[in-house]
């Protein structure tokens, strides 16, 4: 039986609730302190700033829910999109270029999945190493410029990331469309159910008959494809794709967004809603700090401390004790 001093389940706060509560607090705080914060334009801009981050967070969530992690998302995003853009620049048709980029991302995800499922390399190291491999491979063979520009030849694709429809920025719309589809995938399809089962307890899933290894491969292919889509949105928004973001801490920001919202790192817990909560918090935070004219570096420090608070909260809410902690569970 549960210890006498434990909170009953119904009253325990989930991380998602804490984060949402924090977001509301911050929102109110900034709204009072900062002039212009509550303007609808600003709210949209707030979401717009973190839309890409949110999309990447959704892709990362698929990996995390299946008890993995995908650190190579940013590299895959940058190189596949940069390649597609340079193909368009070189005169090829937009469809061909997009198809090539999609294929590249898919192959990278496939390689990730195979390494993790069949060669049994732990996900952290496989994807960490794949970051270097994808980045290096792309730089050496495919893309010979640091920044790939979006020419006018892209045509209507540009609308995915830039411009507005009905007053809502298109990147925000893309974000919500992606979020909705992945939500449906995770909630209403067998794939989603299997994914949660796998993440919760891979051994039991295998015993029950779930094809864990092909599922793992599929999970990483999916996260890579989502990275590609997010990359396209980003490229259309900024008119370029800077391959040097691979070296930045963007991938850590993506993990931040997922973990803050309450996607459990040990797998099987969390979903799109958590990513939305985390994205919202980060967006409010970043926007508010920028409006307070806090320098970029101070913002990073604050972001780091918020993440620290999130994982401390995570460990208090989901404690791991010495008796059950797994070997090599880093």
């Amino acid at each position, binding site marked *: 039986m549960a210890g006498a001093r434990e909170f009953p389940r119904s009253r325990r706060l989930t991380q998602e609730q804490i984060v949402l509560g924090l977001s509301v607090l911050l929102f109110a705080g900034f709204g009072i302190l900062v002039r212009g914060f509550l303007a609808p334009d600003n709210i949209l801009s707030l979401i717009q700033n973190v839309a890409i981050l949110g999309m990447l967070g959704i892709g990362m969530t698929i990996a995390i829910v299946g008890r993995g992690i995908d650190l190579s998302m940013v590299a895959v995003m940058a190189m596949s999109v940069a390649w597609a853009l340079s193909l368009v620049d070189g005169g090829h048709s937009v469809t061909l270029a997009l198809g090539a980029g999609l294929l590249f991302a898919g192959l990278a995800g496939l390689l990730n999945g195979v390494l993790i499922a069949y060669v049994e*390399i732990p996900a952290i*190291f496989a994807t960490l190493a794949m970051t270097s491999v994808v980045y290096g*491979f792309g*730089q050496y063979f495919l893309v010979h410029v640091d920044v790939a520009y979006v020419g006018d030849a892209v045509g209507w694709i540009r609308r995915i990331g830039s411009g507005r429809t009905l007053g809502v920025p298109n990147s925000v719309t893309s974000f919500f469309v992606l979020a909705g589809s992945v939500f449906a995938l995770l909630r209403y399809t067998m794939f989603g159910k299997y994914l949660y089962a796998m993440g919760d307890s891979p051994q039991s899933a295998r015993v029950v008959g779930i094809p864990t290894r092909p599922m793992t491969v599929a999970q990483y292919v999916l996260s890579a494809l989502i990275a590609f889509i997010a990359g396209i949105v980003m490229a259309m928004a900024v008119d370029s794709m800077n391959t040097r973001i691979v070296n930045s801490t963007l991938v850590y920001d993506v993990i931040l967004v997922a973990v803050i919202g309450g996607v459990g790192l040990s797998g099987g817990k969390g979903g799109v809603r958590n990513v939305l909560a985390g994205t919202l918090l980060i967006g409010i935070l970043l926007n508010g700090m920028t409006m307070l004219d806090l320098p970029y570096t101070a913002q990073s420090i604050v972001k780091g401390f918020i993440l620290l608070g999130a994982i401390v909260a995570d460990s208090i809410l989901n404690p*791991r004790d010495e008796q059950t902690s797994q*070997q090599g569970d880093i």
Partner: protein
Amino acid sequence: MSESFSRWRARLLPGHIVGEILSKSWIDNAIPFLLLLLSIAFFSPRIPDFFAAYSLEDNSRQLGELLLIVLGETIVVLAGGIDLSVGATFAMSTFASLGMFNALGWSVPSVMLGAAAIGAAIGMVNGLLIGYLRLRAFLTSLVTLIIVRAIFDALSLKYQIAVSMPDQKSAVWDFLGNGAWFGVPFSLVLAVAVGLLCHITLTRLRLGWHIQAVGGARRSAFNAGIPVGRTVCSTYVLSGVLAALSGTLYASRLGAAGSDTGIGLEVAALTAAVLGGVSLGGGRGSVVKGALGAIIVTIVQTSLLRLGLGSGASEMILGILLLAAVAIDVKWLKNRLKVLAKVYVSPGYLALPAAELVDGRSPYALNDRLNDVELIGLGEIEGPEDVILDTAGNLFCGSRHGDVIRFFAPDYKQWDVYAHIGGHPLGHAFDRDGNLIVCVSGMGLYKVTPQQEIVKLSDETNRSWLSIIDDSRMRLADDLDIAPDGRIFFSEATIRFDVSEWMVDSLEARPNGRIICYDPRTATTRSVISKLLFPNGICMTLDGESFLFAESWGCRITRYWFDGPKKGLLKVIMPNLPGYPDNINRSSDGHYWCAFVGMRAPAFDLALRMPGFRKRMVERVPHDDWIYPNMNSGCVIKFDLEGNVLDCLWDRNGVNHPMITSMREHKGYLYLGGSLNNRIGRLKIAGADPEWSGNRSYWHGGDA
């Protein structure tokens, strides 16, 4: 045709070496060492001045800085964690060192101490969160990375000029980053010194053992009372200090701390640790492994830069290297024992002459002579491989529980544990003073005094130069006999297998055994005859200058002169036995008894001539289904020194003695033992001298 090919192949190719090498404990280090040699061999022809003095100095300077960080990372990974914040600590320390030296004007030692303090502080934050609050190592060190990096960016922005510009001149400071002793850069010297310290800590000090325990089995370490939190915290503090030290060296070398200092350093450090063979799950690793990995990474990085391949090549190759290293690490850990089991058994070629038929006309004809044995200790004794009686008539035998059991004369119904030695006591012999000398398999040669004290005589012999297996240890001491001058000759059946696997040696059919001599006058042990096919029973001949020994898989009995004019001579007196001879003992009429532990069969004899077949069998068929010699039937023979078989006793229906490993004649009776049996048999021999005993024969007059 193919048989002679198999014969030559088995003789010329030492296939057993592969298995022996794989079972060594240093094999883990061999793979990264091989990788290192490969990378040097690959790059040195492509880079003209790979070994030039300036190039070596440059590279070793880089290596020194990287090595410090890799050492810290190795320690953290050893304890089962991971430290991703080393890059940020490095950058912070670089900045702080410059500030302390240039802006604050501190002396060099204080700068180093100050930087170390900063590293320790950052490490302490990690350690508190991960060790005590039990947060996840990966995420927490990631967060520390972000926070420290952000602080560094902020500080660097405001103060970078202030910190680097007023360039204080100090020879000591310059020496830190750019100096060298006889061409060896200071950073490498420092790294090697720190490496030595770390090695001593990890292998000899309590902290190091705690670290390895926590990494190897965290749950068990916790349950055993090791302070897990404190140990883990200390690893992070160490890692922080080492990264900070490396940062100071870098600051001295470059004189500036730009905003991309230390980016990607954690990946390089992890790659180096994993390449060297430090296991990611913790518990397996060492300073040497980390150092090997660091050397490989440095060589690959600098060579790729030198080759000027263009952007991307270096990253891609390092990423592939990391993947390959982790894949091999994972697969090796998982499959090592499986591979070893398949590869270790290395069948050789053995062609025995065609066995004699055991039919009505042969001296080995079947009979029922052993039907009427009396049984001693039925169901009470387990595994009496050899039996012996003392002057009072008490019966001694070994048991598989590690005891020497004594059955009391005259009816042998009562028994006690004469001595508990351990292992499985096999061959027994009494020396001149009534001490019972026992060969204990798995342990060596022991003596039990009449006061029941146990003395270890020998468990180590000289190591042969060319053997990969450490054959100074004794694995399967089998039978022994004592020469008139007190020297003890005993057989070691095989150096490649332990007593639990002795039957697999029959599959190998390689001359893996030897005969060893222990001299109690000088307490020395030396191998006397080596390369024997499972030497088993030993018996002194009546002339006191030679002894007979049996080779079980060789199916022969040989006579060896250890003294006298014929010293050193080996003569096979019975070359073609139909069974596998075990122990040999004297008989009352001046001849010798020998027990057959099993009988040869055509199928097995044929298999011994087909090493390829046995190799494939070992690889493909489960262990329990391997072909084995027939151990279900055996007999006792009496033979003379010319090789004639004088008598043969069988238990045809296999009721009491299906397989017999030894027989001992004492005062008209023959006592039979079997190492897989649970009884001792006692058979009256018609016409035997009722006063003859082994003791008298050996030591007190008797026949000579």
